[in-house]
Structure formats: C-alpha cells, structure tokens
C-alpha cells in the first residue's frame, strides 16, 4: 500500500550564525563553526537536509571550581587549575568549541590573561562568560571583548537585567552574544527584540532558553524549545535564532549526578548514572532544537557525539 508521507511546509528559517574567526576572517581560530540555518523541525531530513550539524562545547573555568562533582575532577585531573591546559584537554576529548566561565575573583587582567591563554592553547571557537554578577560581568567582559577584538567570541550571558554593556562591546569588537531567558517563549522573544533594537544584528546572537535537567524541570525547557523552533519556522523573526543549552551545568548540580553515597540503591551505579543524566538530557534537547550543547564530562561528549552523528544520518 503506497503511503503518501505528509511533509510540513514552513515559511521561516532559523538564522545562520558563525562562531569564531579564522586568520582569513580577522581572528586566530583554526576553524569557525556555523550553526542554525534549519528549515525543518529537528532532524526531519526527509523534508530538507539539516543545514548544519549541531555542535558540542565543553565548559571550563578560569579557576578551579570548588563545587564540581568529584567524578569530573577525576576525569579532568590537574588541568582544571589551568584554563589553557583544560581547553587543550577538551579539544583532545573531541569538543567543537570551548565555553570559558570567568570567576568572581578574577580581575580584568586575570580575565584577559585567561582568555589569551585559552586562545593560544586551542584553535577552537570560544565562548567567554562572566561570573554572573552584573558589575563584574561588565567589567570583565568589556576587557576581554576589547583585547580579543575580531575573534568572534561568544560573550555572555546577556539577560534582561544586563544586556546593554555586553551587547555594545560585542558590537564594537566584532563578537557575538548569548541571550538567556528563563524557560519562556515570550521572554526569549522580548530579550531578542531588546538586543535587536540596540542595533546588534541577530545573526550575532545565540539564544539560551534554559532548560533544567532531567527530573528537574527539563520538560518545560524541552517544550519551550519546540515552541520556539515552531515559531521560527512559522516566520516569527524574533525566534529565529539558533539555541544553545547547557545540560552539563544543569545535570551536574542534581543530586543524581553529584552524590555517590547515601542515595537509594535503585539509583544504581553513580558514574554511569551521572553520564546518563547528562547524555539523556543533552539528547532530548538536541531533538527539541538545540544547535549547541554545552557538556562537562568527556564520556558524555563521546556518547552525545554518537547521537549527533546518527541523527544526521537518516
């Protein structure tokens, strides 16, 4: 019985965004990354080819974090106290991109030095995020932005209460920004509008709709992402931005990943559970529209890479 397969016809398209600049493009990256360009719901390749393969970023810190799971410390080891060595190790583990978080203790000089060392240690495109306090973020990111002029860094995190300074310095120095909102389609749109109103072209903005972890609200994030992608395909310009999500950050703070003792026996093996938590969250989010997933554990990276490779093969 011949079955006529229904195909969705969309008018809209997710914007294409390029991260990182090679020497030819005015930076020092050995390659740049292109994300977005989607014209279908995720991986519906019988309708149209998926324009760009989703990418995996590894999260690193400018100073050794004191609240990370010992499972992460075991796997990364001593490189955690040296962002350049950490970035190199992440590249060796197969990362497409590095996300460097600066620390509250960093001065502008520290931040610039850390960014410079990471840029020297790896040719991967780089995101640089402030520690998350308005004044400190602005102080550090402006310094980084100016000193790495032309690298097409992804700077962040822009939120509704603090986006102007970061967007402005990005605009002036040829970088991109991450716009983060809290699991809500309209909030995401609104922030994109505000940023766009400042004059920063939207093909230099990645949106992070935030997601929650498996078991901790992920279903909200998952549905918000599906709705954002649907809106984008339906032609709503202010939702047509590639999405970047952080399953590493989200899952490694859950008890399931963080804690190995004193938990129910039914939770099973700690390490394998933690990897499942990160991997399953990331995979679900890729299938709901993520273009960039930021992970923490190299084993998760390996498995999510398998998922991406397979999802790209119809």
């Amino acid at each position: 019985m011949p079955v006529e397969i229904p195909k969705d016809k969309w008018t809209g398209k997710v914007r294409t965004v390029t991260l990182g600049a090679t020497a030819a493009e005015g930076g020092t990256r050995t390659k740049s990354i292109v994300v977005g360009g989607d014209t279908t719901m995720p991986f519906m390749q019988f309708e149209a080819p998926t324009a760009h393969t989703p990418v995996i970023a590894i999260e690193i810190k400018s100073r050794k974090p004191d609240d990370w799971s010992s499972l992460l410390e075991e796997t990364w080891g001593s490189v955690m106290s040296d962002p350049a060595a950490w970035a190199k190790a992440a590249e060796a583990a197969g990362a497409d991109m590095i996300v460097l978080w600066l620390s509250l203790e960093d001065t502008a000089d520290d931040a610039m030095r850390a960014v410079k060392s990471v840029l020297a240690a790896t040719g991967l495109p780089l995101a640089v995020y402030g520690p998350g306090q308005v004044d400190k973020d602005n102080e550090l990111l402006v310094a980084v932005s100016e000193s790495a002029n032309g690298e097409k860094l992804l700077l962040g995190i822009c939120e509704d209460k603090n986006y102007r300074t970061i967007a402005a310095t990005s605009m002036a120095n040829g970088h991109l920004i991450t716009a983060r909102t809290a699991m809500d389609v309209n909030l995401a749109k609104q922030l994109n509008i505000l940023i766009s109103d400042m004059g920063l072209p939207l093909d230099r903005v990645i949106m992070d709709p935030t997601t929650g972890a498996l078991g901790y609200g992920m279903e909200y994030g998952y549905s918000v992402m599906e709705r954002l992608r649907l809106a984008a395909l339906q032609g709503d310009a202010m939702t047509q931005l590639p999405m970047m999500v952080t399953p590493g950050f989200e899952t490694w703070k859950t008890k399931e990943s963080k804690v190995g003792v004193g938990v129910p026996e039914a939770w099973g093996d700690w390490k394998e559970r933690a990897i499942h938590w990160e991997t399953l969250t990331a995979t679900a989010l890729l299938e709901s529209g993520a273009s960039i997933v930021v992970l923490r554990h190299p084993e998760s990276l390996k498995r999510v890479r398998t998922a991406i490779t397979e999802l790209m093969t119809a």
Partner: protein
Amino acid sequence: MALSGIQIYKMLPQTNCKECGFPTCLAFAMKLAAKQVELSGCPYVSAESKAKLAESSAPPVRLITLKGIGIDVKAGNEVCLYRHEKTFYNKSGLFVRIKSSQTDIAAQVARADAYKVTYVGIDFTVDGFAVEADDPSKFAEAIKAVRAATKRPLILISSDPAVLSAGAAVLPGETPLLCGATSANWEAMAEVAKTAKAALAISGDSLDELADLTEKIKAKGVEDLVLAPGGKTMGGSLILATQIRRLALKNFRALGYPMLTMPGNAGSPERESLLAAQAITKYAGFVVLDKFSPELMYALLVLRENIYTDPQKPIQVTPGLFDINNPKPESPVLVTTNFSITYFSVANEVEGSGLPARLLVVDADGMSVLTAWAAGKFDAERIAKAVKAFGVEAKTNKKQIVIPGHVAVLSGELEEELPGWEIRVGPREAVDLPAFMKKAL
C-alpha cells in the same frame, strides 16, 4: 480526518431543539469538533450520522492493552505530535528482554521485577518482560520461568508462528504481545494472534509495507496491532516514528497503532541508552531493553515521567516538612511552595550546601513563589497553616522560619498569624541560599 464543526453540523438534525443543552445545532457541532461534548447529547441524530461521527472520533492511535496477571500496560490513544499541544497520555511501557537460552531467568526476572524507585513521591517500576525464543526448544519452559517470577505483561518474540503459538498457550487468560508478523509470515501469525487473543506486532522495512500488512491482518480479524518500524540509525528511527505519528494524527488508519522499539538491538549499552531515550521522547508505546541496569532504568523512568507530564498540570510536590542533611532541633526552617521546580531548586541548593535544614513546603496549588503570591495562593495564612499542620514547633527549638525574599512583604502579617515566632527574610533566588545560610543563620 477529524471533522470540522461545519462538517459535523451537516450531519446533525439542524432543528435547534436545544435538548443537548446548547442553543443551536451549530453550537453543539462546534463543541463536538473540539471534543468537549459527547455525541450522545443529541437524542435525534440518525444512525447513519452516528456511524460516520464515531469513525471520525475514534482515537487516531489505537489503544492497546497488554494484560499480565492483574497488571495491565496500555499504549496508544495519543492525540498530538508535540506535548505542549495537549499532553502525551499512555507512557511508553519499559520491558526487559529475557532469552530462552538463558540459565538464570528466575534471578534476572526477580531482580528487575522487584525494582522500584521513587521520584517526587511517585513509585516507578519496570512494566513487563519480553521473552525471546532464541532457543525455541526452551521457549515454553522459559515463559513459565518468567511467569513464575513476575505478574507483569509479557511480549513474546519469535519469527516462527508455531513457536509463538506454543508460547502463547502457556499464558491463558492473558493478553501478551506477539512479536511478530512480517511479510513472510503474516497469515500464520494473524491466526496465532487470533486464537491466542493476543496483540500482534508487525515489522516492515517501509511504511508502505507496514500499512499493507496492518490492513491485511486487520481483514483477518486481528485489530490489536503494534508497529515495529525499525530504522537503522537514530535519525532513521526518529523520522519513521515521526512520520507514523503524523500520519496517524491525520487519521491514516493503516498506521494508527502504537509503536514498539527494541533499542537493545543497538549493539552497545551506550547506544541502547540513547535509542531508548529517543523512543520515550518520540512516540514509542513499548520499549524493549536488553540489559536491566538500575541506573539506566531510573534515568529512563524519570525521562518518561517528564515527557508524559501534562504540561497544563505541572508536577507538584506533596506539602510537608522535609529534612535535609539530617537537621537538628536548632537547624533553620526554610519556607517554599509545592511547585516541583521551585521545590527542587531550593532542596538542591540546600542539599548541595551540606548544611542541615528543614524545608517547609506549603500548599500553593503547585505554583512558584511569585506566581502563587500574586494569585493569593501563598500568603501569611497559608504559611501559618502549614507551620501548624506539619508540627514545625515540635521539631525545632527556635520558633523561627525563613521566607523567600520575593515575599518579604508577608513578614508583618506572618508575625500576626504566628505570635512569638521570628520571621526571617531569605534571599530571592534559591542559588543564594547556601551563602545566606552560612552567613545569616
């Protein structure tokens, strides 16, 4: 295709008799189209229209119920492609595969059967077992061994109709899923399923083949069918599953059945976990896993609960007083609402801090702090009521509670509601709790 209100209206008596409770037949038709009323509300509808309307109102994905001994697992009855459009109803059943050649069947089944894990106060278990006749001579014996160790529904796997027939004979009065029919054996398989009153899974290499087989098997009198579309990669499986669900939602009857996936065929446990997760998020009715491991089962059960949560009714936590990090009488009491995400954010931060505390979860109709406060569901009265109802006073020696910073405005009223208690105002965001607890408490 689901009918529009106008199409339905044309089949109604159009007398506007109002006996259905609506002012006009058109109004009633619109309600019918929105599936908000039953056709039985109209006493005068013709038998012919009734038949047509029943056909169009049948669920796009047929409901299939597998029965064990007093335990059922259902799949189907789904009505949407994306969970936010309405909700996903029947959670993907998770089955563990046992091979008839195995020598440790009783122990394997007993372990998985006894598995129980609690998530936000809900107990989850494995749903059933799949017995594969890799050694047909031991199949009946293996099914008996499985049945002795569990009461849950079974899936029986063999490509030989005679083997499945003998296997199903071991399970009188049950509804197992036979797996299954192919282009090569469908006629004999249909007979076996019919005789055994079992559901039948159908595999095919293409949607054309699957649709062809479901129609032929249905014509033989077997209606409880399940589709096993396969797919070689995650991308391929995702596309097939999506196409089947889409076609079913467009009332393409030949593919209007739940799906079965076997991620255990994936070759490695890592791939199995990825494929199983995809099956849960993307439309599988039944999932057969090769290996039972508690850590994967827990992750999959939580994923399933998340995806199948009704988006309009967020998961709530049972209100009460919860201990974190073994609190003592002098440990602080932190107040929050029973919205699951709010609860988790707060509980997670406090747990992560290592500091002992008690968390007083107030019934705020499952809303977050600010939303509940704005809606009048998280006020001084409700907090005071929770303090009394959950016996806070008996467990602490301090008579002090910490309320979220967002509702600092409630402290005055609370002091009136709880005379003699000290009301402290905590941070607005959960993430700032550890620092606040270290410094201020």
